[in-house]
């Protein structure tokens, strides 16, 4: 049957089993919206109208990060497309599978500085996994098919499809066929690890005296948490997760030594620094993890498992590179370990664990609650207890993000949703919308700061429209706290532009959008407020916790230092 471009678009989404699409309309996508509306009426798809394209993109990211599906978004040409760029770049840095549709001006107007024309394919080229401009209706279905395929396979990432308006109009029609698998001679990710390297890795594992497993977001993306658990427990090695990898291994398990990196635990960083073998899995030796590269883990041999060959030996040279899908490689390693039947030397491991427990005894995350105002760390810890560690926690960027990562103990993957690579303030609330839409009955929180929440505050409107009962935990210190902390440490307390003047009354603001607002000023009221909010199952509750103003995130590795040079409280 011959279909219009807009109809083909809908049929492609259906074939890809897209249930939810996030977006914002405009001139160049009106034919697509016309078709979307009809499809929605027939119950084929649900469109979520954000209040800003950035919000739509982060929502799509939250949806993708909390499920095993790609996030899908649609925005108009020009300003709609440029507003989406932050979300696209964010997804690129954190390898989030997204398919983003942008409207484009009519083909004959491209290059003419037409109204709302922007070269979005050019603008996004450095921050997408791939992008396409559709120039013929005959290519539309095939291009969309490729977009989904590229976004979701290999190392996932955002793919943008730019569609000129006249391709979607009612004049041109084309036969629709979506059956053929995507043909791509130039794209063929390696999934299975090289057998020789896997055997070498086993040799290293069995010889290690002071090993540590260091895992990142790749484990979560690959859906390999249970394999990681088997592998780690077979070996009785300590394990640390990156900020993106939290939840891949249960945080309450005794082999878990906490997050590593700039604001990681003392024990995780010390164990990394003193290790003789690092097994890096789906992690990329980011500068927030390694500290000063010259001082990085001087005695460690490194095994690195990653689906992206370009991540291997990029920042740190490794001894055993294994390119492949984390799950498949872990399964192969487990199998090979079983075949060999050997165990690492338990006496050595015993000494290593004893050393680690001495580092743990420092209790680097301790804090006192003898503060006049609310203690931010305490709020997160209480929320973890009261939500029984079972919430989906989204966060913005700043001190509150680090406290959320340090004090909420994630025992399951896909529960911790934050912007790690790009560090995008404004991510939290819209991401939480995406999560709540994907998991309507789940407990979803957005831990945020008084700066970040204002960057996508307009999405409170979206939350009212779709009745999303998100719990916003705002740790309001009156400052751009993370900036202030750096200014305190490294700029002689010159608090340039980091004080948040003229904060709104967040309670009233929440109420104006039809939500519940609570203001909490004392530690003793924290528990009551959280309980009250948790009990309001079907309402969004904005909790404005007035926290101590100049609290700092500890421990910390200052810039230029090594992992063994942490500042403790």
């Amino acid at each position, binding site marked *: 049957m011959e279909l219009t471009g807009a109809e083909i678009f809908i049929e492609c989404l259906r074939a890809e089993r897209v249930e939810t699409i996030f977006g914002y309309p405009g001139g160049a996508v009106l034919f697509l919206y016309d078709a979307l509306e009809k499809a929605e009426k027939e119950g084929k798809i649900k469109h979520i109208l954000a209040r800003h394209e950035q919000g739509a993109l982060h929502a799509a990211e939250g949806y993708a990060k909390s499920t095993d599906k790609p996030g899908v978004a649609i925005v108009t040409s020009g300003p709609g497309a440029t507003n989406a760029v932050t979300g696209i770049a964010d997804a690129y840095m954190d390898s989030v599978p997204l398919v983003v549709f942008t409207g484009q001006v009519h083909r004959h107007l491209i290059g003419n500085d037409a109204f709302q024309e922007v070269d979005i394919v050019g603008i996004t*080229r450095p921050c997408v996994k*791939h992008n396409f401009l559709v120039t013929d209706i005959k290519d539309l279905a095939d291009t969309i098919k490729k977009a989904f395929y590229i976004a979701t396979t290999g190392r996932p990432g955002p793919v943008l499809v730019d569609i000129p308006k006249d391709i979607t109009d009612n004049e041109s029609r084309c036969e629709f066929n979506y059956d053929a698998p995507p043909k791509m001679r130039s794209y063929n990710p390696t999934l299975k690890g090289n057998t020789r390297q896997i055997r070498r890795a086993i040799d290293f594992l069995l010889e290690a005296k002071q090993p540590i497993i260091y895992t990142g977001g790749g484990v979560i993306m690959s859906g390999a948490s249970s394999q990681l658990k088997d592998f780690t427990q077979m070996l009785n090695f300590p394990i640390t997760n990156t900020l993106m990898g939290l939840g891949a291994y249960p945080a309450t398990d005794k082999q878990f030594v906490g997050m590593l990196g700039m604001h990681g635990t003392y024990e995780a960083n010390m164990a990394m620094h003193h290790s003789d073998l690092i097994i890096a899995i789906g992690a990329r030796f980011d500068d927030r993890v390694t500290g000063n590269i010259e001082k990085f883990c001087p005695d460690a041999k490194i095994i690195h498992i990653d689906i992206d060959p*370009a991540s291997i030996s990029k920042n740190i040279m490794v001894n055993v590179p294994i390119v492949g899908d984390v799950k498949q490689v872990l399964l192969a390693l487990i199998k090979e370990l079983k075949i060999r039947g050997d165990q690492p030397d338990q006496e050595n491991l015993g000494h290593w664990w004893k050393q680690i427990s001495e580092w743990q005894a420092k209790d680097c995350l301790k804090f006192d609650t003898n503060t006049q105002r609310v203690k931010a760390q305490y709020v997160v810890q209480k929320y973890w207890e009261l939500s029984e560690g079972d919430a989906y926690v989204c966060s913005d960027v700043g001190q509150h993000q680090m406290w959320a990562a340090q004090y909420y103990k994630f025992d399951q993957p896909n529960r911790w949703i934050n912007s790690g690579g790009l560090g995008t303030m404004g991510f939290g609330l819209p991401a939480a919308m995406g999560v709540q839409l994907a998991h309507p009955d789940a407990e979803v929180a957005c831990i945020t700061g008084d700066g970040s929440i204002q960057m996508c505050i307009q999405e409170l409107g979206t939350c009212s429209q779709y009745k999303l009962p998100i719990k916003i935990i705002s740790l309001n210190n009156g400052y751009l706290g993370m900036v202030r902390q750096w200014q305190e440490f490294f700029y002689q307390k010159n608090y340039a532009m980091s004080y948040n003047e003229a904060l709104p009354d967040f309670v009233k603001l929440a109420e104006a959008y039809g939500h519940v607002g609570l203001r909490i000023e004392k530690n003793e009221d924290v528990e009551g407020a959280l309980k009250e909010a948790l009990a309001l199952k079907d309402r969004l509750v904005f909790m404005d916790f007035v926290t101590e103003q100049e609290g700092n995130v500890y421990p910390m590795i200052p810039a230029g230092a090594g992992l063994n040079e942490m500042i403790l409280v």
Partner: protein
Amino acid sequence: MGMSMIKEERHVISILMENEAGALSRVAGLFSARGYNIESLTVAPTEDKSLSRMTLVTCGSNDIVEQILKQLNKLIDVVKVYDLSEDNPIEREMMFIKVSANNMAACGAIKRLVDIFRARIIDVKSRTFTIEVTGDRNKLNAFIAAVEDHNILEVVRSGCMGISRGNSALKI
């Protein structure tokens, strides 16, 4: 590792890529975004119209060049990448150079240089010679140096093309 200790070497990289709009800017953009240098870059379609062949010359330490090859491979439009430098490749570059002679003696000198370098004069007008020279870049540089005493009006270089020796071929 101090930066000063790292040995930088010249690499000639062959790239086979989809002949699609934007493919070239993906490669060029990759180099500028990641701060890799490009000494020269040439590109044209192959006998198979759906493919373009690019020769890219860059300079860097082994680690950097390994990253460059991986990052190039990661581009969706790139079908194959090969570092030719590993096996003494054939390299050629073409140059047009326009030289004007001050007097008849100089005309003779230029013609002799053209013969020595096996270059060709393709146009002459009132003591101005347009010369075509083909060879590796050292030869072209040497030719420029040799005619420097005369007035060099214009130089156009194609950038290096490379191909491997023997029966190995970069094909899909």
